[in-house]
Structures are given as C-alpha cells and as structure tokens.
C-alpha cells in the first residue's frame, strides 16, 4: 500500500490506513475517500504523509484528465505569454518548466 506525501494527495484517493493525531486518536478512518477539504484539513493539522489504496500513478493520471482541454490550452497560452521575455535565458526556462510541471502535471519537465 503506497505511502505518499500529503501534498501529492488527490481527491478521490482512498485511505489505506487510518490517520491518527499525536495522541493516537483516529482523525480519519481507513477506507475514507479524500476530498479537497479533507486534504486541506489534514495539511492544516500538520500531517505530512498518508497511506492510500491502489496505484497512485493511475489515480494521479485520472485527476489530471479532469482538467478540460480548453482550460489546459488557456493555461499553456498564459504560460507562454508571461515567459515571452525570457526565451533565451536558461534560468527563466527552468522556472517555466517548473511552472508547467506544477500547473499541467502530465506535461512534465
């Protein structure tokens, strides 16, 4: 059962192990489906890692597919426009790759 960083958790992932607080009290039980609100709540409470069921790569790909094509194109166009000045600069290209990987995950670095 994969252990993942909470910041990489996606809505729809299923908890494989319960999440407990420092005193061992169960905050969320195994089998609960994560939502944006639940992930945010866990982050706020200082949790860093969770165990989830299934293959996280497939789940991540499923969540990427949720970004509609038109929105993806819009994000890509905005990215090109704001980096139009830094085309010949390798450091600016580094930031562009970082931004693309974060905003459009499957495009990768």
């Amino acid at each position, binding site marked *: 059962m994969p252990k993942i960083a909470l*910041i*990489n958790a996606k809505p729809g992932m299923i908890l494989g192990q319960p999440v407990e607080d420092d005193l061992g009290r169960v905050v969320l039980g195994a089998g609960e489906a994560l939502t944006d609100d639940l*992930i*945010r*709540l866990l*982050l*706020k*409470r200082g949790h860093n890692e969770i165990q989830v069921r299934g293959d996280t790569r497939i789940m991540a790909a499923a969540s990427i597919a949720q970004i509609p094509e038109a929105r993806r194109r819009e994000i890509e166009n*905005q990215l090109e426009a*704001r*980096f*139009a*000045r*830094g085309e010949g*600069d390798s*450091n*600016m290209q*580094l*930031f*562009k*790759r*970082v*931004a693309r*990987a*974060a*905003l459009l995950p499957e495009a990768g*670095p």
Partner: protein
Amino acid sequence: MTTRCQAVLQEVMRGAKELPTLPHVIAKILRMTTSAESSAADISKLIANDPALSSRVLRLVNSAFYGFPRKVSNVTRAIVLLGFAKVRNLAVTASVAQMFTGLERPGEFSFRRYWEHAVATALASELIAKRVCPARADDAFVVGLLSELGKAMLAGRAPDLYRKVLAEVNELEIPVNQAAAQVLECDVASLGSEIAQYWNFPELLVQCLKHYRAPQKAPPEYREIAQCVHVADTLAGSLGWLGAGEKFVADVDGVALMELKVDEAGLTQDANTLLKSYDTSAAVLQMAA
C-alpha cells in the same frame, strides 16, 4: 538619490502621516519580535492598544485554519499558542491589507492583483527560506509580503506618476521597476525601502526591500533573505501571480539560485506546495483585512 527621486518620495509621503495605524504600531511590533527582551505580554499589550488590530488577530487565531479546540480569547494566549513570529506576521498582514484597501484605483492599480502577488510571494519566500535558512523563514515572509510596498504607495498616493510609469511599461514592454527608474529616476524597490525607513521599520526590511530585485548588492547579513524573496518573486510570477502592472515574470539572478542551492526538484516541490496552500492561506489572510 537624485533631486527628481527626492521629489517623487515627497509626493508619495505627503499626508502619509494620516495613514491608518500601520506604520507606528507595526514598526514597534516588528522591532519587539526581533528583540529577545520582549515578552508575550509586551507585544499583546501593544496589539491590545489597537482594538481593530487585536480583533483581527483573534479572528484569525480562532478561524478553522488553526483548528484550536477552544476559543482563544486574548492576544497573550494567541502568542503562546502560535509563537511571536506568527502573530507578528498576522498583525502585519492585517494592517497592510487594511491600509491598501483604500488605495484601489480601478483601471490603473489593481489592489486585488497586488494582494494576490504579495501573499504568493510571502508564502514562497517562507518556503524557500525554510530550506535555506529555517530560522529566518518568518522574516522572509514579512519581506515578501511588503516587497511591492513602493509600487503600491506610488500607485495609491501619486497616481499621475504611476500612470506615466505604466505607459512606459506598455510601450517598451519592460518591468515596472525599470520603467520607474527611467521615468522618475527612482525605482519602486528603492522607493519602498525609503518608505520603510521613514516609518522606522527594522533595518532588515529597509535593506531587503531595496535590494531584493538585485540581491547581490544587499549587505552580507541581509543577502540570504533578499535572495529568497528574489527567487520567490519569480516563482510566484511563474505560477501566474504576476506583480501589479507587470506583463512578464520577473528576471531571476543566476548567482542567487546558485548560492541558495536551489534546484529544479526543490523548486517544483515548492511550486506544488504553494499551489496547494495558497487558497487556504489567502482566504485566511483576507479575513484579516
């Protein structure tokens, strides 16, 4: 400073003494939380003297964001729970938001865009500093939050001058800071630093606001924080939080990246954390306003 630049500063600062309580109370808070001799009681007394400020701080502490099981009813308790630096950052954030809300000038200066960039830069500065110089991460947050102070003050208090700067930005497609230096003989980073000095802010802010765009020129003791904020400004812009009036992501200094040992993996991790935490943090910070 040239005569022209001095005149710009005077125009921006004319009547600035009538601004809300920010400069006086915040300058004191900023100084107290960097002094080892100040206690939670000293700082809470200062915040409590400003009822509007203390109610905003308590509202934040009691928000779902922190999730404390019992209601926190006084500022001293908030400082014990959250620490000096966090309460200081809340107080500064609340005051800055309040001060700039009145400066909105539609079509010329978007307060919303200014604020979003300020919050994203503050969070990114804190994230980068946590890896590079963890003990100074809270300082990096405040510098990031106030990094565009000069631009906001110019837009709000000398809108005619700001309009001329924007015309240059649009015509030559250059950053606001560079356009201001050409049109006013005074870049907005230096202007922010002069304002911070006028308000008696700590030297850390005076120096970092002046040098964060060219951090190699910062005095050695402030260089690391100036570099963190410099990189954070570019990271925030890369993800879509461009500074007010800017068309492009701010250029990044390769030496800063090298000295901070920032690599693509670390930046990607910070970018993902920023995207995840921004919504919650921005909502919380907005609530302080």
